[in-house]
């Protein structure tokens, strides 16, 4: 049957309408989705960030590391190749290679700085993860879904901060005292700092922040102009780890010496 002009236009119109349907349906589905039921006691933010006043940091104080690793059942392997690290401590010069020069004051040169996941604005680990196991939450936390991790370690290659560790061995036996309120991980899974997402949901500050005897660490909402962290950041210069890479780290190191 030969088509006349009118029929071709009709079919084209129907096709056009059909193509417009999926975006409309997605839009509707997104709107009808029930918003998260978050209890009022939970700590929430538009964009989480952390500021660490390294001048307050007592050199080689392990309190934040111990608190974090005990909270999250992080195993401690003697062999450094198997080491799992959510939060660690590195010399200032290694954390900020660009700031390491021969005029650096001795107090900074000898200082150990806490290092952990920077919860980047533009996280390379999320971009390279082939299964979507690592993802960015709307509130800025770079999260992991351990159920989805296949242990390919692309994220470890992608992360310029070494914030991720692979479970080469079954972690259970290497955990000194198991915290029953947080799951372990399995061998073959990568893990990292989760900004104590589970503690924020209960209205508690992250374990490292709560444990710091010097109150050197501050978490807060970077999207809120009146937050404590914004007040601290507006008070002077803040260093970010390798900001030139464009990852947009959201952990700020302050020096208010």
């Amino acid at each position: 049957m030969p088509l006349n002009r009118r029929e071709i236009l009709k079919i084209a119109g129907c096709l056009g309408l059909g193509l417009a349907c999926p975006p409309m349906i997605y839009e509707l589905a997104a709107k009808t989705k029930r918003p998260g039921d978050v209890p009022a006691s939970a700590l929430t933010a538009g964009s989480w960030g952390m500021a660490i006043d390294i001048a307050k940091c007592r050199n080689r104080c392990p309190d934040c590391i111990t608190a974090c690793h005990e909270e999250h059942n992080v195993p401690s392997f003697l062999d450094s190749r198997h080491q799992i690290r959510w939060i660690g401590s590195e010399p200032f010069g290694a954390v900020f290679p660009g700031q390491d020069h021969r005029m650096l004051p001795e107090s900074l040169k000898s200082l150990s700085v806490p290092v952990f996941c920077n919860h980047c604005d533009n996280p390379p680990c999320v971009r390279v993860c082939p299964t979507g196991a690592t993802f960015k939450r709307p509130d800025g936390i770079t999260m992991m879904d351990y159920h989805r991790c296949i242990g390919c370690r692309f994220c470890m290659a992608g992360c310029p901060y070494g914030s991720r560790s692979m479970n080469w061995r079954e972690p259970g036996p290497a955990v000194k005292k198991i915290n029953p309120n947080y799951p372990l991980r399995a061998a073959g899974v990568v893990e990292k700092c989760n900004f104590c997402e589970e503690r924020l949901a209960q209205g508690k500050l992250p374990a490292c922040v709560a444990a710091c005897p010097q109150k050197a660490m501050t978490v807060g909402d970077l999207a809120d102009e009146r937050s404590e962290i914004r007040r601290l950041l507006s008070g002077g210069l803040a260093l970010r780890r390798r900001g030139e890479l464009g990852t947009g780290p959201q952990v700020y190191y302050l020096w208010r010496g």
Partner: protein
Amino acid sequence: MKLYDGGKIIAGILIFLILITIPFWYGRIKATALPEPSLATETIDRLEERKCLEDRQYMRNNHAKLLTELKNQVVREGNRIYVAKDGRKHTISLSSGCLGCHSNKSKFCDRCHDGVGAKPNCFSCHHQPKEVR
């Protein structure tokens, strides 16, 4: 068209069909009743209304799927409240929520899973509270 040695061929085909379907026949003959999970724990006995997140049949058919959905809801959306179909609200937690009531893992989880040969690996990571009874 004539089929040479038709009897042998048809008999051969029949024997072949019987042999290849042996797993099905064997399963039929040997089929045993599904093991019944035990719902007897102190916490469940103390409940006023003995109801899980959803009704028993739903939980029996869909618990694996539901657990995955709950995991996604907590991890992906940060929403720790499950609203059941009848409107009751539950805080989502495997170790203290699910296993808070079903503290008899060996008689509840394992009994069925062993019976059907399913090997979920929940407890290679998740904490397993000390069994009651």
